[in-house]
């Protein structure tokens, strides 16, 4: 392949979105649109002629390299794309706080974790691991969260009582009199 086609391949591969011609121009500022289009064409032809497992397509969003459609099923079957994912540390921490302190509101979770948790809460709600179990006292009557049966199922627990006891996490931040009295 020609140097420009190689650079175009690297750019299309590494980009986190389809690239328009303008964006390719930024990668190779001296090349000019004509030669860039020729390079794109060369790459497309190459994938075609050498019978690659991927192809170069042009959609409204720009140019992109995609796997050929005939492999979609094998990839999905093997969960190459749709593999089970571990929860992020942020999600896991939030889930741990909710599991041990439910029902618990957002403010309290944020206090313990020290960061905003909106995004994580939404994710956990969408994945059915937590649900809204009520509303708290106080201004705005905050939503309170708890874990779902799906959460227990995922952990292979039959009830929340089976969660290992964690005195610290269920007690800390409870009424201060207790702690201060130590």
């Amino acid at each position, binding site marked *: 392949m020609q140097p420009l086609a190689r650079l175009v391949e690297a750019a299309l591969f590494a980009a*986190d979105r389809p690239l328009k011609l303008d964006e390719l121009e930024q990668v190779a500022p001296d090349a000019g649109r004509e030669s860039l289009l020729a390079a794109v064409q060369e790459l497309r032809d190459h994938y075609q002629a050498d019978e690659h497992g991927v192809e170069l397509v042009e959609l409204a969003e720009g140019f992109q390299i995609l796997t050929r459609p005939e492999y979609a099923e094998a990839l999905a079957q093997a969960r190459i794309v749709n593999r089970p994912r*571990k929860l992020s540390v942020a999600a896991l*921490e939030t889930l741990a706080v909710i599991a041990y302190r439910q029902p618990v509101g957002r403010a309290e979770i944020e206090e313990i974790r020290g960061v905003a948790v909106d995004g994580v809460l939404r994710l956990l709600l969408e994945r059915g691991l937590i649900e809204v179990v009520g509303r708290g006292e*106080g*201004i705005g009557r905050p939503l309170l969260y708890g874990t779902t049966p799906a959460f227990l199922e*995922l*952990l292979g627990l039959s009830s929340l009582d089976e969660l*290992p006891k964690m005195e610290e996490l269920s007690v*800390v931040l409870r009424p201060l009199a207790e702690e201060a009295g130590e």
Partner: protein
Amino acid sequence: MTGLLQINSDRAFVVELDEFSGPLDLLLTLIREQQIDITDIPIARIADQFLAAIHELGLNQAADYLEMAAYLLRIKIQMLLPRPIDEEEWVDPRAELVRRLLEYEQIREVADWLGRRAELRSERFARGWVPELPELPPPPIMLSLDDLVATAERLAESLPQRVTHRVVPRPLDTEGATRRIREILAVKEEFDWAELFDERPSVSDVISCLIALLELARLEEVELFQSEPYGMVRVRRAAASPVG
């Protein structure tokens, strides 16, 4: 004291104001600068230079550095004690320090190697954009009880539980208070601020509302006024307010 001042005035060594990754790093730098044999450290001189350096770098508040300084001074004193007549019995007070320094040097070498590898790796990029295959449900989630409990314990450990004087009140909820104020303003043009509360509001509720009101006043959404000194604070929808 004189020693310290002396070191400050004639600086035989050059300490860069770069950040050190710890007291061992600083110590090793001092030793290297002066090409000192690590197994025969002139401990009195190095201890003074270490103290001068952490003072100069503003590290004299950092516990790790202070601990090392104390450790060095302890060795310095031990070196001054008379040795037993039988030299065989004598254990060099510096031996442990030497072991730690060598061990650290080793780790440092590996760390540099890791850094170079990471640098090389950072020149190559994996695929940035992986389109979802059509019509796939979201990927299943893997979760183990061990992970959850380990995470919970890690969190619990990091909580300030042993600090008994730290009072952790109910968190303020200015967002909720703002919402409530706007709700009332949507139906009333003006109201007593006491209307914001239940019969027995908590301190944090009152503070939340106060902060929310001040913020809304700053944004010119509301006007606050009193009809008489010490009178009840009234909240009024500002003329240009978008609310309502």
